[in-house]
């Protein structure tokens, strides 16, 4: 009993902190999402109901944002994880210059998102003066000029995906190379003595052994991609709705502070919807992983 009281006492600061800055806002957002026409200034609302959700779900901007976000998630998570895995396996199997390459691959992680966005814009943007470096390359192969930043939807989506993959890759490579290094080499020796082909060693030994890490990266990758916002801003500027490249988080932000701002109720409803989507996807991930992830 005495011990218990002490334990609670020690936990109290953390509880207070988390309660004030995490639990309370969460509950508050949930409440806002049901309060119709909530007004910041007067702290008043006109009714309670599902109108906010109905509004958001019928808002074409929101639907566009959901479409963009889902596409971004579906494309970038598998591509970045797969690519990171391939790179990490490559990095672990070379001996010379490994550390140099590891450093190079890690550089994007410590680079500012907006600065990188600027560089991507210079690479991809078509201006009255130049078509941009990527278009020059396309011309080299006889391709047409594409305006990636202000052009067709698929071109903008492509740039956003490439950019996102490029930005999230270093962290995944870092985590995966250390996971690969932690696999005891005796398993590889045993597999060699048993005459195991390389590919089978990878699929039957390496992959299951690093599966908890891969799973971790997939889960955090999903969550991270669903919360994408700054990447889109870096490439397409702050008026994402106009560019047709808004994301769900971007929509929430716009509802709160953007040009059309001042709608905390709609913002809360959108945020709760995002939360529901992420929660569902994570649960599905967890269920699927049970069969394929080996915690030893």
């Amino acid at each position, binding site marked *: 009993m005495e011990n218990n009281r002490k334990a609670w006492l020690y936990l109290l600061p953390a509880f207070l902190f988390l309660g004030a800055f995490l639990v309370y806002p969460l509950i508050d957002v949930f409440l806002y999402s049901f309060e119709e026409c909530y007004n910041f200034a007067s702290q008043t609302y006109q009714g309670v109901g599902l109108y906010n959700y109905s509004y958001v779900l019928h808002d074409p901007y929101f639907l566009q944002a959901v479409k963009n976000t889902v596409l971004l998630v579906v494309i970038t998570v598998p591509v970045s994880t797969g690519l990171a895995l391939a790179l990490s396996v490559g990095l672990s199997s070379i001996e010379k210059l490994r550390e140099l390459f590891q450093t190079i691959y890690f550089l994007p992680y410590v680079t500012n998102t907006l600065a990188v966005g600027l560089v991507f814009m210079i690479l991809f943007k078509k201006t009255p003066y130049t078509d941009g470096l990527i278009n020059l390359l396309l011309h080299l192969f006889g391709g047409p000029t594409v305006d990636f930043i202000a052009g067709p939807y698929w071109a903008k989506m492509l740039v956003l995906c490439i950019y996102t993959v490029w930005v999230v890759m270093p962290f995944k490579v870092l985590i995966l190379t250390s996971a690969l290094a932690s696999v005891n080499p005796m*398993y590889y020796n045993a597999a060699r003595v*048993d*005459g195991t082909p390389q590919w089978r060693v990878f699929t039957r030994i390496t992959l299951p052994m690093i599966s908890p890490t891969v799973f971790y990266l997939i889960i955090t990758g999903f969550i991270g991609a669903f919360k994408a916002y700054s990447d889109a801003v870096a490439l397409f500027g702050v008026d994402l709705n106009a560019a047709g490249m808004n994301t769900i988080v971007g929509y929430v932000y716009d509802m709160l502070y953007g040009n059309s701002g001042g709608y905390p109720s709609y913002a809360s409803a959108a945020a709760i919807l995002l939360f529901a989507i992420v929660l569902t996807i994570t649960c599905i991930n967890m269920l699927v992983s049970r069969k394929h992830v080996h915690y030893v």
Partner: protein
Amino acid sequence: MKVTLQHVTKQFPGRGKGARAVTAVNDFDFTLPDGKLVGLLGPSGCGKSTTLNLLCGLLKPTSGKICFGDEDVTQLPAEHRGVGMVFQNYALYPHLTVRQNIRFPLENLRGKDKLSKPEMEQRVRDAAALVQLEELLDRKPSELSGGQQQRVAIARALVKTPRVLLLDEPLSNLDARLRLQTREEIRRIQRKTQVTTIFVTHDQEEAMSISDEIVVMKDGVVQQIGRPQEVYDSPVNLFVAKFLGTPPIHLFRGEVHNGRLLLGGAAVLAVPGVPEGPVTAAVRPEGFVLDEQGPLACTLNGVEVMGRDISVVCRHPDCENTVIRAIISAENTVPAGGTVRFALKPRKVFLFDADTERRIPFEA
């Protein structure tokens, strides 16, 4: 399958600039008879594990030749040598069940060796039966005891009917009782399968008890090869004499004079044909005979009763061991204290050159 090592040498490059290469195995030359169990024995760092890795192909020799039967396998990579290997930590794949672990090598077979599913299942079951694991096939390695894991590792190594079975310190991770049991088990399985088996150990008792032949190594150099009893009874040098036997052999600073061995000035044994001069005399614990008229006088420390035998703990000024433990039959009565006198059994006494540490033979 006869295994031949011809002048096999393995050097590892030294660390850092200008470092000298390290010779882990030096000119290993030995033919392993077909179907025998051979123990590679030596202290840590003597090159026995390197030898095993050379045999299984995980390492390539710097020079020399390795043959399985008449086939030269020196350049053959591990994948194609057809050896079964039991690793020191078993290296069981933790995410696979026992059944999947044992089946793993079979699934790698390609071309004409490829097995059908029922054939594989049969082979797995046979291997599991051989090591008495049938009931545990659906468990994960983490749910098994050390001894059971060891047996899974053996089954996995044997399931593809290897040409040679290699075991790296197979008993070092087991507790004392399990070790006794498992070594009998290894002996039984080897007898039954008749597969040429080489196992590495630093435990001389282990090697002696189950091997048909033992190879004693030190610093990458083979010291002696022979049947365990042979090597025990007639070690070629001081290292081999010291390495085999528990309690360890006793070393005395002695001198040979007029064909007699002098220990502490007293002539204790006739050693005809041995040149005059200082020698190291080594006496096995069972080489002492309690004798009131015996020439070797020691100061008695005490007596340890072990049931069948007793061990007389005493001291001698010229003995290099801190205490002498003479193992004698429990039927003897030992005086309560003071001085205890021994005669020596000539066959249990070995003389070594004090400088070269090589054996000096004499007619016992």
